[in-house]
């Protein structure tokens, strides 16, 4: 049997090419996505080790994700006094304070233009310093800086360069004394790192305050002991961790992106493999049908059904192993291509090189082989069941008929599935309904193929005999047509579902957000202030009606990081959407506070403890509640001036709401942003930008998902090419005959193209119909269960695009088979058996 299987593979290698291509594509995608995400994960985690590997204990923000947008936790800092107390604990050998703030290089004549970067306090402790000098020396005196390798290149700097550095505190003259790198990468920060020595860092980066954002320690005692000892010294809002805990947390949060990426990418790759299974199954079915006669001879001379089955399975196994192994190799190549393509479009993946792990290789080979083996089982069983006499009688063209049982099964599945999807009582029931519906449609494939062919018949009339014969061929073997079309259906279904459901949810979300009023722009200063000059500059911009600055500080309220603001409430209300849910502005007397209304938040009349970054604290009574509007998020909690001053001191305003003439928003935007860009600490953000942001995020996700679904569509394309090629091989005599009696080659080819078009049309139409229905049902069910009122929006444009692409794919798939259909000599063709 083993020789027989080998011969089977060898003699039919031509027919197996498509199977191999399908396996290779699927396995290739799988391994490539694994390689890429493994590289990202290992590089991200490696970065963490590089950065924090020597940390034995750390004092970091307790809950850096506490507040909503803007990362206000960054504002809460450790004072030098607090830091000193911690670092003087016995057993601490070295320490590093984290302090970062935006800096920029203003334009210099004759050099590349200005560039914003991150200013960092240079860490003198060599073991805790994540950066490495590639040339020059460490910055020491005020006015000395080190820049990273990337910046050095992009802003044209080298050791000895004299340059102006724009900071929160103004522009300073600096000399570059060193160039740094971070592991295998240039910089630790996304847009470059400028290292500033302690002598200047506090002035440049933190308006003169000696404060740190976090503190990392190196010690000579046990990590746990160190943590225990510094714990009592850790201020509110901060937490002490052992180096190990800290490293795990950092690795987790940093590597998490990579791991999500891996799961998502692999899901799509598995989908491609799943679609590949249809192609593989189909190819084997066709090959077995075509070889029935050969198999019958085997049976006639005494091979048992079991032997035949085993021989075919062995063939499947050989093909599966071969394809999977080649797939892994293809995956490796694909990885390089992917990285290169991403690089070309400007996405530089972190890390370098590819680590070929054993796991993805084994997984890829295993997956491909198992899927192939499973796909070959049904045809193998069918072949073994065929009586020898029957097989000898069967003509080369295999025709299958479908049982009533199949019809009933399909109908039941579709009805139950659709019912579950529309009326299911729980998410599980709805999900199960979707699955049943999908399986039902796959089972109903042959009937859909027949029905579709019937519908296509009148459409093909204008194409005359070719159109007629093309439809006949599609309908001749509905099972095979269905399997081919199903591979495409899966991709089209998912693309339509994602697009339609995603668009509906997006439209709903954006609509809801648009209902919310907000200030037109929010100007924030990170580390600086909104000084009168700046206010005047903004006010001078054409279209700006009013600017209302207010003071804001990050504090902890009952231990939770929060924003505390103070300002001219009527003036704020004029430009922003600030409303009192309970109480009014008049209730804000000294010693009281207004907090944003939230479930589980402080109630009216409650007493809350507010602590500022220096540890000063005060207990305030909640005298009013703010309605949770978009602008309320910016404000956080509100107090009267004296209370604020008592807590934080008399600081300058750091935030401002800006009101522009209605309709002038887009016009003034450029001018406002241009002014903001002149100072590194100022950011101007559009108030109702959330709506646009949400909309663009949805668009990005929908497009990215659809792009990835493209993998499965490519496999489906191979499936169509394959089925057509095999069917042409099987019909070569018939095609020859048509040509003998005078069908010109051009018309024969057109017939093949039309056939492909009909098959692709079947898969596309069915996929779109199923996708739209599922999307509608899903939205309907979400509304029903979650009592939402998301409307179903039909994405007409995208749907048409999918339709056109699907049909285009059909024509594309026909290119090779059409050419092949007339490649044979007429004479050879009619002499074929």
């Amino acid at each position, binding site marked *: 049997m083993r020789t027989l299987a080998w011969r089977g593979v060898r003699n039919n290698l031509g027919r197996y090419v498509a199977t191999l291509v399908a396996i290779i594509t699927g396995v290739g995608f799988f391994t490539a996505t694994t390689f890429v995400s493994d590289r990202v994960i290992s590089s991200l985690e490696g970065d963490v080790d590089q950065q924090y590997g020597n940390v034995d204990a750390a004092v970091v923000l307790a809950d850096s994700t506490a507040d909503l947008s803007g990362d206000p936790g960054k504002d809460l800092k450790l004072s030098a006094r607090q830091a000193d107390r911690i670092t003087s604990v016995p057993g601490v050998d070295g320490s590093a304070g984290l302090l970062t703030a935006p800096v920029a290089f203003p334009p210099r004549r004759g050099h590349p233009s200005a560039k914003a970067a991150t200013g960092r306090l240079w860490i003198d402790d060599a073991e805790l310093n994540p950066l490495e000098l590639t040339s020059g020396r460490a910055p020491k005196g005020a006015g000395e800086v080190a820049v990273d390798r990337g910046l050095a290149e992009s802003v044209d700097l080298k050791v000895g360069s004299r340059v102006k550095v724009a900071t929160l505190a103004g522009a300073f003259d600096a000399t570059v004394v060193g160039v740094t790198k971070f592991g295998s990468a240039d910089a630790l920060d996304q847009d470059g790192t400028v290292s500033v020595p302690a002598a200047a860092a506090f002035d440049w980066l933190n308006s003169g305050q000696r404060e740190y954002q976090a503190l990392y320690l190196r010690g000579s005692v046990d990590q746990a002991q160190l943590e225990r000892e510094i714990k009592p010294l850790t201020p509110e809002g901060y937490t002490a961790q052992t180096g190990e805990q800290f490293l795990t947390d950092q690795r987790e949060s940093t590597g998490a992106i990579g791991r999500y990426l891996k799961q998502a990418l692999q899901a799509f790759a598995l989908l491609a493999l799943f679609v590949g299974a249809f192609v593989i199954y189909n190819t084997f079915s066709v090959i077995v049908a075509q070889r029935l006669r050969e198999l019958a001879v085997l049976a006639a001379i005494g091979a048992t059904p079991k032997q035949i089955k085993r021989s075919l399975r062995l063939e499947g196994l050989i093909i599966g192993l071969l394809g999977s192994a080649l797939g892994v190799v293809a995956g490796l190549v694909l990885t390089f291509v992917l990285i290169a393509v991403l690089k070309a479009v400007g996405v530089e993946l972190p890390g370098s090189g590819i680590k070929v792990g054993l796991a993805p290789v084994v997984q890829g080979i295993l997956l491909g082989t198992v899927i192939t083996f499973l796909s070959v089982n049904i045809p193998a069983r069918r072949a073994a069941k065929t009586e020898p006499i029957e097989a000898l009688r069967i003509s080369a063209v295999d025709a299958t008929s479908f049982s009533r049982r199949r019809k009933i099964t399909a109908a039941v599945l579709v009805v139950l599935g659709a019912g579950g999807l529309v009326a299911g009582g729980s998410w599980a029931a709805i999900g199960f309904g979707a699955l049943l519906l999908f399986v039902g449609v796959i089972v109903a494939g042959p009937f859909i193929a027949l029905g579709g062919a019937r519908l296509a018949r009148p459409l093909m009339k204008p194409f005359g*005999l070719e159109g007629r014969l093309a439809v006949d*061929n599609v309908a001749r073997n509905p099972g095979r047509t269905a399997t081919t079309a199903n591979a495409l259906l899966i991709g089209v279904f998912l693309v339509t579902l994602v697009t339609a459901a995603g668009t509906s949810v997006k439209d709903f979300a954006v609509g809801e957000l648009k209902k919310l009023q907000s200030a037109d722009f929010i100007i924030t200063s990170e580390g600086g202030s909104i000084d009168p000059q700046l206010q005047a500059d903004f006010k001078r911009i054409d279209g700006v009606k009013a600017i209302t600055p207010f003071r804001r500080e990050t504090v902890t309220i009952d231990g939770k990081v929060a924003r505390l603001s103070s300002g001219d409430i009527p003036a704020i209300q004029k430009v922003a959407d600030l409303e009192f849910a309970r109480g009014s502005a008049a209730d804000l007397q000294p010693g009281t506070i207004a907090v944003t209304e939230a479930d589980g938040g402080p109630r009216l009349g409650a007493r809350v403890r507010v602590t500022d970054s220096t540890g000063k604290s005060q207990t305030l009574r909640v005298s009013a509640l703010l309605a949770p509007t978009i602008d309320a998020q910016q404000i956080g909690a509100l107090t009267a001036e004296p209370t604020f001053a008592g807590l934080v001191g008399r600081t300058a305003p750091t935030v401002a709401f800006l009101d522009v003439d209605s309709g002038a928003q887009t016009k003034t935007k450029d001018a406002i942003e241009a002014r903001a860009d002149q100072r590194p600490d100022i950011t101007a953000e559009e108030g109702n930008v959330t709506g646009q942001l949400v909309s663009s995020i949805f668009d990005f996700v929908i497009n990215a998902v659809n792009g990835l679904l493209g993998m499965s569509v490519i496999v489906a394309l191979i499936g169509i090419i394959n089925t057509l090629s095999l069917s042409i091989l099987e019909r070569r005599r018939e095609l020859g005959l048509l040509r003998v*009696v005078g069908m010109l080659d051009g018309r024969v080819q057109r017939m093949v193209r039309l056939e492909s078009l009909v098959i692709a049309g079947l898969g596309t139409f069915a996929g779109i119909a199923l996708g739209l229905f599922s999307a509608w049902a899903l939205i309907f069910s979400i509304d029903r269960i979650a009592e939402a009122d998301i409307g179903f929006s039909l994405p007409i444009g995208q749907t048409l695009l999918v339709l056109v692409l699907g049909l285009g794919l059909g024509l594309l798939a026909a290119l090779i088979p059409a050419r092949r259909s007339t490649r044979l000599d007429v004479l050879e063709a009619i002499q074929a058996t």
Partner: protein
Amino acid sequence: MVSQAVSTAAARAVDARKTYGEGDAVVHALAGVTVSFPVGRFTAIMGPSGSGKSTLMQCVAGLDRLTSGSAFIGDTDISTLSKTDLALLRRDRLGFIFQQYNLIPSLNARENALLPLTLAGREPEQAWFDEIIATVGLGERLKNLPSQLSGGQQQRVAVARALVPRPDIVFADEPTGALDSRSGAEILTFMRRAVDDSGQTIVMVTHDPHAASYADNVLFLADGQIVDEMPEPTTDRVLDRMKRFEV
């Protein structure tokens, strides 16, 4: 008399040679055949297996090309025609009947019989079509698919298909080879009638002396050359002639 009617030849070959392979393995399937097939006549080609019968027919019918020499359909030298022109020539001027698998499985009997006309975009002459269908006795079976017809019935459809467009010449390669003797006799009778009643020209390759006896003239081929011919053949005389090859 028959062989001299060159001016009214429906098809002919002049010093036709066809070789396969090279060097030691070279096979001369046709080794210089000059022949003509007169209009309105039924010509049979006989000879031992491998003598070049099919090759000769295929080359004259434009299905294959000669290695040297030339072949004509009427006055058209087909060795100069392009692939497309050959296809058009076959469609418009020739009819074919093969041993089996003559029909397109997805077209019914009627559609198969009309296939060359459909391809050419020509309308069938209804009376003529009805007459042929009546002759071959297919009336009730016109709507059936080939798979629903017996081998003999399928072959009748093939004959009808070859005759309906009134081609200049019908080529048949062992049309009765796969049939039992009764069905075979029926097919041969139809072909004979087409020649007698409407002056159809037919060239038929056969192994069967009885089939050859339906022809007006029999050409004998051996080793790629015409070695004999027999006008007004009878089964017995053909059989005798064939026996001589075996010695």
